[in-house]
């Protein structure tokens, strides 16, 4: 009975994380398209939501591998997974509040690492996995995207600098619709999988599924729906940061950033080295700005974004560990997760209402 209740809470929390993931990461996919007027804001987020939904069904390859290389499998219990999700959701909401694009995947990994550390000690954390699967890709992703974005915009200006702007701008806008669609699809194939993985893991540890099972259909559909819904609601604050605050973007820069991002994500996925969508697109946007003129990039804003990246893992880990510690105050039963989930829901509702009353920018 207790374990079933914890399972229900874990599933609901995982879907809430998936929603924040779509909500938070929409910016990566649509911000440049919106800022260059390649698409109207609502149309852009609707398009991204649809492709995120479709992407969730395309590939199930990574669904069962969430955090498996960074935390010892013996340390993972439903309560650890729950606390890890709380850490990830909390960090996603903090960075959304400040309009900072940070990696939801790193937040999830950080949350689970922190909760596992609190539950089973330092031995539960696989340091080599954290370095190899999280820290090194976090350095490589934005750097490669920055270089590709800078070269891409140099090529665009070199080839098209003397052409009439009318057809060139229209062409780049069409290109952005295609590259944005590729990004949204890639995001769905990567990130909805993580929620499916978390729910499947919880079902296996609770004995509802045999080890090594594929995610059941209801898990796939609910994860796809949650990420698509979050994408459609849209994190307008982060969209504004990505689309207008890092650089003032023209259509060529928008296409270069998005095209570079899509190419880097797909190439790295093909060679088994998946990179963070957030890091790649942010790097691509900065590269597309710096490729035109280094001073075109607002380095103060870029610095804040990099700071948020650096803080993501330790901050989500600290919140995950605190969440696990809180649940243990009420023993090993379902009481701790129930109280924490209820308190979290109240806090999130309050924060949303306050933010909406403060007039969060929601374009028509």
């Amino acid at each position, binding site marked *: 009975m207790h374990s079933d209740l914890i399972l229900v809470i874990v599933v609901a929390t995982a879907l809430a994380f998936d929603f924040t993931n779509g909500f938070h990461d929409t910016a990566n996919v649509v911000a440049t398209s919106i800022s260059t007027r390649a698409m109207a804001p609502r149309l852009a987020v609707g398009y991204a939501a649809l492709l995120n939904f479709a*992407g969730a069904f*395309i*590939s199930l*390859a*990574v669904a069962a591998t969430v955090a498996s290389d960074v935390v010892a499998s013996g340390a993972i219990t439903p309560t650890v997974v729950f606390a890890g999700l709380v850490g990830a959701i909390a960090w996603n909401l903090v960075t959304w509040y400040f309009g900072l694009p940070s990696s939801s995947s790193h937040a999830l990994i950080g949350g689970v690492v922190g909760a596992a550390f609190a539950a089973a000690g330092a031995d539960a954390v696989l340091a*080599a996995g954290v*370095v*190899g699967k999280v820290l*090194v890709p976090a350095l*490589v992703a934005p750097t*490669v*995207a920055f*270089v*590709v*974005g800078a*070269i*891409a915009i140099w*090529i*665009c200006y070199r*080839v*098209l600098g003397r*052409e*009439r702007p009318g*057809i*060139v701008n229209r*062409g*780049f806008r069409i*290109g952005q619709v*295609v590259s944005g669609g*590729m990004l949204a*699809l*890639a995001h769905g*194939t990567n990130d909805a999988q993580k929620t499916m993985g978390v729910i499947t893991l919880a079902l296996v540890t609770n004995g509802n599924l045999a080890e090594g099972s594929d995610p059941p259909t209801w898990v796939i559909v609910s994860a796809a729906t949650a990420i698509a819904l979050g994408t459609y609601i849209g994190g307008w604050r982060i969209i504004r940061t990505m689309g207008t605050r890092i650089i003032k973007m023209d259509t060529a820069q928008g*296409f*270069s950033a998005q*095209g*570079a991002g*899509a*190419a*880097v994500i*797909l*190439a*790295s*996925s*093909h*060679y*088994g*080295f998946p*990179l963070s969508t957030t890091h790649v697109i942010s790097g691509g946007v900065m590269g597309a700005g710096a490729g035109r003129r280094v001073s075109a990039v607002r380095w103060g804003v870029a610095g804040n974004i990099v700071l948020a990246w650096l803080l993501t893992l330790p901050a989500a880990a600290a919140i995950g560990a605190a969440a696990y510690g809180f649940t243990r105050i009420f023993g090993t039963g379902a009481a701790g997760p129930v109280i924490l989930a209820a308190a979290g829901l109240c806090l999130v509702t309050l924060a949303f209402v306050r933010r909406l009353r403060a007039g969060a920018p929601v374009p028509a």
Partner: protein
Amino acid sequence: MIATIVDTQALGRSVVAAIASGVGVTLIFALTLWSASRWIESQREGRGALAAAFAGLAIAGLAAFAAAVALGIVVMTHKS
């Protein structure tokens, strides 16, 4: 030390493929737009043969861009 923790071979291949595909796709798309722009200009100036050549180049570029998009979708569906 890092080499034992990180799959440097996969990382190296990823970086090279990312740069090659990112730069390649942008170059193809930029040349497609350039050809389309030249095509319209040539037509306006009444140079039919040149316009036809640029139109062919633009269509070839568009086909190459579409092929790159299709390849991207195939990569997504065949993730390991």
